[in-house]
């Protein structure tokens, strides 16, 4: 129905996460309609980002050099590592400006159904790092779902004998929200994780 090149474009777009065949078709036609220079700028951006990006050798964040900017920044607390699943989680935590330590990106979480075991995530690299650097605390910042919890538990067990303090982020109610809108699971977790107030 389409010319070969257009069909190829639709097929490639359709492979992207969250984009189905209909959306791929819509995006493709949009790209054919816009200015040639705009379309080529997108193509260049993809090429450039893909060619220049690599994984940071230390923390496995996305980086445009062997070591990422965060790992190079000596002003950051060099004794704390925050373990996350994906590079986008670093972006989320950085936005808070609350955390000044280092990161470690696992690039996944334990999920046997997707064929992901300890070998497929960067746990071994984390252990190597902990052996080489002087780390006092590891914060486990994996997602608060079944697989994220399992991953956090797995790492905490590996680190149990190292003497490093291992912590897990709290889960509970969103700030500024209403209790009545919280689902039972979240509210239940928040109740479990309650803490004393007052002087």
């Amino acid at each position, binding site marked *: 129905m389409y010319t070969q090149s257009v069909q190829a474009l639709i097929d490639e777009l359709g492979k992207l996460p969250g984009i189905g065949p209909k959306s791929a078709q819509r995006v493709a036609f949009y790209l054919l309609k816009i200015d040639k220079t705009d379309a080529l700028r997108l193509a260049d951006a993809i090429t450039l980002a893909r060619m220049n990006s690599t994984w940071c050798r230390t923390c496995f964040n996305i980086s445009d050099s062997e070591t990422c900017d965060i790992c190079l920044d000596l002003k950051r607390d060099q004794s704390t590592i925050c373990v996350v699943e994906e590079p986008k989680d670093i972006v989320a935590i950085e936005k808070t400006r609350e955390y000044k330590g280092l990161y470690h990106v696992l690039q996944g979480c334990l999920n046997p159904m997707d064929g992901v075991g*300890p070998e497929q995530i960067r746990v071994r690299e984390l252990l190597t790092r902990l052996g080489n650097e002087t780390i006092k605390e590891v914060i486990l910042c994996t997602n608060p779902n*079944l697989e994220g919890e*399992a991953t956090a*538990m*797995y790492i905490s*067990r590996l680190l149990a004998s190292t003497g490093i303090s291992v912590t897990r982020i709290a889960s509970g109610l969103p700030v500024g929200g209403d209790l009545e809108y919280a*689902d*039972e*699971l979240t509210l239940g977790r928040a109740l479990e994780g309650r803490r004393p107030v007052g002087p």
Partner: protein
Amino acid sequence: MILKWLELHNFRNYTKLLFEPKSAGAVIVIGNNGQGKTSLLEAIDYLSTKKSFRGATKESMIGYESDEAVIRASFESSHQREILVEASMVRNGRDRFLVNKQQLSRVSDINKVTPVTVFAAQDIEVVRGAPQLRRDFLDQCVAMLFPRGSSIISSVEKVLRQRGVLLKQTGGILTAEVASTLEVWDQQLSFYASKLVELRKELVELMTPYVFEAYRVVSGKDETVSLAYKCSWDGDLYSELVSHRREDLRRQTNSIGPHRDEVEIDLDGHPIRHNGSQGEQRTAAYALKIAFHSLYRDRIGEDPILLLDDVFSELDESRGEAILKSVSATQTILTTTGNIPGILEPTMKMYVKEGRLVDSLG
């Protein structure tokens, strides 16, 4: 809970139907076999469970010459709250389910919105069939009664699936690597499983006096029904999982856990599943339904709509009447091919013929 009106489009043999029970009381739907009596109840129940109580697939619920079936209904809760539920099943697409025009955050919350109790001929399988059926019944009740029930049930299912896949991936060999990964899933499983078992046991305990009472009333005999929850392990689940590890690896399945538990139903101390007569098993099945219906009403303060699918043809008249007496509901909708128990005073009678409501069968 009351069903005010129900609208069907291309649902099974109903091309278009408006059914208006309107008020509280008993509505009788009369028709010959194959005319659509059960389908009517199935549609009402679908709005409560998003499933067919006959176990039918959605394809079989969509009318032959159509690609989409629509069920819409208005309910009124005991607090006079109007609830509009709309469901559509699409042959090759995504189904929709809206409550007061809003999507529910979790599908499993549906049965808390418009609860119904269905009595149907196949209920007897819960008593005499495989343990899975009793666990499913129990979990369905757990999800309706306890706020955290449905999320715990789905967590257990998910962990079991992950652990099962992991066991297969290992190829049956217990290396240190395998042990350390299994450990994590064992811990997750024991955490959620013990919560689920706690809820199931609490439910069994809450239901026992209701079942005891309901069985006596329906059977009219001085017999004792008791329920016992049988765990597939003793003591702490985590340490049991550790000691079953080799067996689990060899068989590459989850050999213990809440998915292997059993609810034993005894009549005068003997398992009714093996020793009971068909009549006793059927009575026990209805006693379970009556028990949960009453328990739900007492705890939640809302009584489910009672749907009776041709139950009187399966029971002698005295047992049928006893069921009607022992289960009180604001609204009852029952189907029959003709015989109506004498004690029933219907507020409304309807006739169904070839997917239409008619004034008489003549």
